């Protein structure tokens, strides 16, 4: 079976070191690879772009880094936008913008909904990541970005080989693509794409110097129900929630009045200190 190259980006292993971005710059800035790509300008292009997403509010904060190269779509819209067959897909699935034929075709840039094609003003040319096709063709096993990644957050390989590392990861982990609704069948897959979280700290009004451990916290909404207990710091967290949905958080503890809080996951939400008061004894 012919090779079909793909990339898995494991966001849970990425700390935003930018080695991938910089190795990409080193490979392409000022360097022409005839037939594959013309030199990238020394600034302004991000063929391997990193989106830094700061999540939550002080003191519950996380950062997710999402590395975004060309998605190497199976059904690339850039091909349709190009005239003169200036964009083509190789048998191994890599999408190439021909650096000669594509001159002047600015519409190729706007054809990409992922916004990973950059316009080279000086050369009058659309440009993007090629998975380092010029190196793969020389026998390299991985592109520059993958070689430079220190944590194994980028895994590259042949999707058609069931024994390749990437195929095994794809088979065993929950992988997603960016914007599946575009229907372009990207060959860049993600593990751990940031969703939304709802977190908070429970405090007992009568025992503010003790962390409220073991409080039952139930999240309902968007068709699911999840229950956790607060940890030894009185903290709880629901991770991986859908954006822009309505949820309710119910906090229950024996002897304390139950509390219900409505939350919309417009952003990641840290509810701060949630104070539970003693339940008022019912009159007999």
């Amino acid at each position, binding site marked *: 079976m012919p090779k079909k190259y793909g990339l898995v980006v494991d966001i849970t*292993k*990425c*700390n*935003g*070191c*930018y*080695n991938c*971005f*910089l*190795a990409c*710059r*080193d*490979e392409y*800035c*000022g*360097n022409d690879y005839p037939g594959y790509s013309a030199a990238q300008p*020394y*600034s302004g292009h*991000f063929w391997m772009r990193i989106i*830094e997403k*700061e999540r*939550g*509010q*002080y*003191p*519950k*904060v*996380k*950062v997710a*880094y999402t590395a975004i190269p060309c998605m190497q779509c199976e059904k690339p819209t850039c091909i349709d936008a190009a005239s003169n067959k200036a964009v083509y897909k190789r048998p191994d699935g890599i999408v190439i913008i021909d650096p000669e034929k594509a001159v002047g075709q600015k519409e190729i840039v706007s054809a990409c909904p992922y916004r990973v094609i950059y316009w080279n003003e000086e050369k009058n040319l659309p440009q993007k990541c090629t998975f380092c096709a010029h190196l793969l063709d020389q026998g390299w096993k991985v592109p*520059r970005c993958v*070689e*430079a990644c*220190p*944590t*194994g957050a980028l895994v590259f390989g042949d999707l058609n080989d069931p024994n390749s590392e990437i195929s095994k990861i794809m088979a065993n982990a929950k992988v997603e693509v960016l914007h599946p609704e575009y229907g372009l069948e990207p060959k860049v897959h993600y593990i751990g794409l940031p969703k939304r979280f709802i977190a908070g700290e429970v*405090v007992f009004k009568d025992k*503010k*110097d*003790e*962390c409220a*451990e073991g409080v039952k916290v139930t999240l309902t909404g968007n068709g699911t129900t999840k229950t956790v207990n607060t940890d*030894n*710091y*009185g*903290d709880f967290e629901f991770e991986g929630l859908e954006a822009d949905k309505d949820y309710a958080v119910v906090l229950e503890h024996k002897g304390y009045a139950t509390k219900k809080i409505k939350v919309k996951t417009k952003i990641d939400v840290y509810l701060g200190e949630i104070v539970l008061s003693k339940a008022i004894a019912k009159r007999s």
Partner: protein
Amino acid sequence: MSEKVFTSCTVGGPISVYVKDGKIVRVRPLVVDENDLKPWTIEAKGKKFSPPKQVKTAPFTMTERMKVNSEERIKYPMKRIDFDPKSKDRRTENRGKSGYVRISWDEALDIVAGEIKRIRETYGPEALTGITSSHHNWGTVGYKLGPFMRFMHCLGFTFIFDNPDSWEGFHWGSIHTWGFFWRLGCPEPYDLLEDTLKNAEMVVYWSNDPFATWGTYSGGESQIWRIWTREAGIKQVFIDPFCNYTAAVIGDKWFAPKVGTDSAMALAIAYVWLKDDSYDKKYIDTHTIGFDQFKQYVLGKEDGIPKTPQWAEKICGVPARKITSLAKEWASKRTVLSCGVRGGFGGAMRLAYGHEWSRIMVFLQAMQGLGKPGVSMWGGSMGAPHNTDFYFPGYADADGKLFCTNAADKKIPNPVDQRLYRLLFPDAILNPPIEWRGEGFCGQSIEQQLKPYKYPLPGKSEVKMFYRYGSSFIGTMTETNRWVMAYQSPKLEFVVNQDCWWGGETKFADIILPACTNLERDDIAEFSNAGGYSAHGGSGCNYRIIVREQKCIEPLYESKTDYGIFTLLSERLGVKEDFTDGGKTEMDWVKRYFEISSLPKHISWEEFNKKGYYVVPLPENYKSTPALRWFYEGRACDTPDYLNPKRNTEKAHELGTYSGKIEFVSQSLTKHLPDDKERPPMPRYIPSWEGPDSPLAKKYPLQLMSPHPRYSFHTHYDTHSPWLCEIPGHRIFKNGYYYQTVRVHPSDAEPRGINEGDIIKLYNDRGAVLGVVHITERVKPGVVHSYCSSIRYDPLEPGKPYSIDKAGCVNMLSSARMLSKNAPGMAPNSCLIEIEKWEV
């Protein structure tokens, strides 16, 4: 034209350099033959952990091509336009303001040699001084302690002690608690990766951001260890006023004490353990002294104030209940305490009385049985399995310095006794005499840091000529407008700057000499091995690799190698024979270093020279000797910590303190400085002179923290590698200029009318700098975070001290006051400021 591939090394790791038509076209992490890499495996918690068969470098190393070809290279020898060596009036007030003219190498060298001669003859050799910056390149023969120091030793000069700027609190504090003076107060790191993965249940990173500090020189090698730590089910907790890069990605909990109040939080943890009886009493009895006095202090028997979590909450702002829970969890789990990259670094000790926090950190782990499996002090980026039998010197070893190495036929001592201290250099010029204690990097003994010094020495000249190699201090020292003023003093009759790039200090020189980078010359060095006080720092790498740093391209423009420049100067000054050790070329030195190392036993010179590297294999029967396990078990030291003076003696089971134990009450301080209230024999929480509760906070309510940068190294790379400036965490482009990124909490930005991306002014009575604001939840309210180490210094009014700096040298704002009276370390994180929107 054909492509050639060379090998070299950087502060962020070894590289393969691809050259075509005399130009560098590609820089990769060193490409090593897979057969040369034999990865070790650590089995822990039912999993197997093994490193990739590849070298992993730091991000800035991926910009090496940019850095070498930087537009900011010094291209030609230059002379300040209004500097006339024949005139008595040197127009020193124009330093930092006047432009430069290009001159020939001959003219430049004649002026420099002529001035050295004149000054030595007029005032004596004491009048000559000079100092290097650190780590602008990597190597042995051409490193900062190479040609520059050998040349200066040949002449004799007033040597300037570096302050241990990254060690401070552990150097001036913890040495008196657990010895380790040979490591400047930091602990040994041996085999703690394996010990942590196997035995620890929690790591508390206290003022430590290993994803940002790159194991110092080990690039990306240890980054994966923290992924493994998570996979091994070990909880990772962070204490830092900034939700740092490691905490933000891998942290299970983040606690943010107010800057400078960490000691109070730590004492409250000890209080909980004392109350709960959850500390190792047997260990305290057998392995420590002075605990009772500490116990009395913590319980409030000494000063009437019990150091309860409620007491600490009022000071540090972390809720008492959280401190209590952390203390209980810590006592119930095998916990690693991780203070900075060497186990003893961190911004929490680069501030007022930082030695108190550093000492109390050791106390906490002593209370939990330091040295027990899973109970260590470990920075998290050293301590992999490492072949320590194989010898190759690092730059901090005696053999690593050209003036005193065994690679030389003749060693050259400095005949001059007079000394200066880097942090006090501006005061020495502007307001002598000066006094201080200690030799800076005091790795020889506990007493070395207590020795009093005076400048100038009686009957000796003050310094008149400054030979500056590098350009970093305005971006790295404290209250650095003082450096601007010192440079403009007529007392400095002549200033030379020798460097590869223009930087903050370059424009204060009378003559500028262009040096080349290590990709333009020959050298030899080991990945991440500094030696000496950082012995076996190469254990921050997954493989031990010695690199033949090959000359990849000819020196650019008119630059020359440092060795070449000093050879030409030494010839003019009649010391060439000594400087070159009887006529050695750079390649002769490289071969000599090959010969004095263990390399010849394993590889021929010809093969090494051609192949470009040697991977030192791990012995088949490698035996793990975890740090301080010997001490815990009461055995003789069995780690390869070769500078430990008690090792292999009858006291080999002892620590390096006077008592040989962990000293809650320091015997060395009791003996030498018993009445020092700022660094008493037993550490205490001492409120900062400039912190959240000091009167100045009314005028300047925000606390500036300025850690070592993440994406650059010291001042290196930075704007010399403009790609880095397109990383938003490093610099932000606005109105045609790359401004320093300044992190501010929304609750501090909003009342000041500051919006995301605004240019803001950071200021206090010591200066003002500009930066672009990033509004973020990652900083504690009241804290402003901006990395130190701007290479550029771009005053709006050039040459005017206290001009606003556009480049972001936040070190202008920090105080020159030292850690404490007798502990002359820098305290840049004790710094109150105000910010406001800057209207252009």
